[in-house]
């Protein structure tokens, strides 16, 4: 029940804690040295605008995983929410925003109920929600992208700027600040980690474990909903067939961020770093193509991403030693 971390060597601990951020900086340095305009404001801003969607989803996933669970539904939920938001966009910015977020929240609540009330394992529960959300999105959209209204300010949520920074980046930034506060400065955040560390012990210590888990999945759904709103606003359409593989991107980002998949330990900041890192790999590959070397890079991208994940997971396993088993 209790874990022995004594086997860790300080170096490994450092790598585990700051590895992502270090890797991120290295990658940025590499790009800056190798490509023109890589650190040009245009690339930075459009990169942030695009990656913020994934960052939001990864944040929700981070909390879910810290609580010892997993959420496969985020991608489909984001897609469905983008449709809902697009449908509501003619009524204005706020209605669109709320509608999209609400759609995500509902899906998250559904996950929470399946897991805490029906005791269905998170993997299956969120898998079902993933299918259901995907189908619902297509139904609502009539099988094709739904145009958002350009008459209202709704598109600003995705395409607008604020103080020179993309609005989506602002939304993600705020979410992460709140996320960090919730995790580090509220009792709830501590309970999430406690439940993830040992659900049974947490119950014994008088924590309402089920309520904690429920809220975590609801939150993940809400963030996926927000990502969906940005998706709709940024590309001017609700896209029922988007979001494929987002859940894996998010899981990978969380893992790369050094959060324990068995729950109980994790960091919001390095999850952000993880998301940026993975996003940056795509961006770099595009620039690399600019030098005209790699050909069908989409294929290599998956291989590279897979190997990268493998590396990180093994490193993590070594850090935690025997305790990596659930």
């Amino acid at each position: 029940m209790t874990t022995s971390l004594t086997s860790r060597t300080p170096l490994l601990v450092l790598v585990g804690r700051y590895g992502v951020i270090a890797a991120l900086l290295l990658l940025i340095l590499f790009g800056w040295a190798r490509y023109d305009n890589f650190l040009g404001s245009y690339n930075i801003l459009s990169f942030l605008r695009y990656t913020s969607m994934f960052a939001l989803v990864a944040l929700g996933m981070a909390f879910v995983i810290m609580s010892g669970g997993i959420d496969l539904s985020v991608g489909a939920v984001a897609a469905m929410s983008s449709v809902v938001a697009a449908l509501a966009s003619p009524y204005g910015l706020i209605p669109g925003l709320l509608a999209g977020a609400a759609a995500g929240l509902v899906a998250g609540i559904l996950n929470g109920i399946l897991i805490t009330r029906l005791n269905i394992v998170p993997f299956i529960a969120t898998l079902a929600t993933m299918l259901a959300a995907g189908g619902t999105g297509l139904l609502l959209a009539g099988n094709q992208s739904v145009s958002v209204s350009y008459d209202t300010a709704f598109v600003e949520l995705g395409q607008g700027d604020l103080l020179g920074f993309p609005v989506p980046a602002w939304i993600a930034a705020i979410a992460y600040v709140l996320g960090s506060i919730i995790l580090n400065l509220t009792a709830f955040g501590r309970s999430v980690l406690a439940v993830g560390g040992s659900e049974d012990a947490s119950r014994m210590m008088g924590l309402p474990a089920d309520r904690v888990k429920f809220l975590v999945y609801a939150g993940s759904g809400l963030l996926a909903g927000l990502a969906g709103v940005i998706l709709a606003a940024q590309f001017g359409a609700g896209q029922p067939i988007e979001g494929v593989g987002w859940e894996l991107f998010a899981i990978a980002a969380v893992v790369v961020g050094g959060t324990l998949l068995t729950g109980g330990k994790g960091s919001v900041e390095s999850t952000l770093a993880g998301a940026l890192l993975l996003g940056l790999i795509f961006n770099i590959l595009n620039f690399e193509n600019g030098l005209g070397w790699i050909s069908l890079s989409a294929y290599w991208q998956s291989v590279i991403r897979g190997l990268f994940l493998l590396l990180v997971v093994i490193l993590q396993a070594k850090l935690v030693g025997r305790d990596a088993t659930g």
Partner: protein
Amino acid sequence: AQELPKLEPKDSYKVGFAQTESNNPWRIAQTKSMQDEAQKRGWQLVYTDAAGSAAKQVADVNSMIAQGVDAIFLAPREEKPLIPAVMAAKRAGIPVILLDRSVDPSLAEAGRDYVTFIGSDFIEEGRRAGEWLAQTTGGKAKIIELQGTTGSSPANDRAKGFADAIQAHPEMEVVASQSGDFARDKGRQVAETLLQAHPDATAIYAHNDEMAVGAIAAVEAAGKVPGKDITIVSIDGTRDALQAIIDGKLGATVECSPFFGPVAYDTLVKYANGETIPPKIINEDRFFDASNAQELIAEAY
């Protein structure tokens, strides 16, 4: 609305090609054509692959803009979500040429927001397939339609064109229409099921050759003779399809050429030289049937 970005004449350009995905033969042939032609002319090509995500394709275009390409060839994943990419390029003063699929005309206009659209007319393709079928079946057919990926513009247009064509023939009706995702395996499975549910079907219209080839397998599995019991028509003009025509299993296929390289780059040069570019450049696509399949199969991909 401000004017189209200009492009000054050079003998070598750095151009971007934002591909939608690389998961079917047609796309791969298109990519190859763009790359080969660029090499031939000694141009530098920035190639990106959106892996089927409209969102990523927009990001790809943005990274091209960041890299300061002279012009962008964009094969839009979807009509609506790619509008921001077109507009961003325009703002950045980079001319855009759309390939094989267009963007929502109510939001972006050829000659104002992008230079032009080069490609086939999907509606026209559907119409030609429909007319051929009407002709060969004497205007009498119960048709199973294998649609492309739900939501994609070729799927919508090829369905529309075909519907227009058979409207004139009261005794031609589509008894079932389901998506086969432009894929051979899915097309086969859907065809098997639909043939089972509608044994009275006499014809199959597939939105692309891959699904048609799958459908042929399905027809044979159902113990019927493709080309005799069931007439099959489709679109694209792949080597497999032409072979099937030669074997008498596939009735006909409307060419939808993936070889965009030459025309695309020529158009860009013309534009740089200040010539006026029409808002639509439609490849004159051939029509493959028993009469010409044998001699043309060599050119197919």
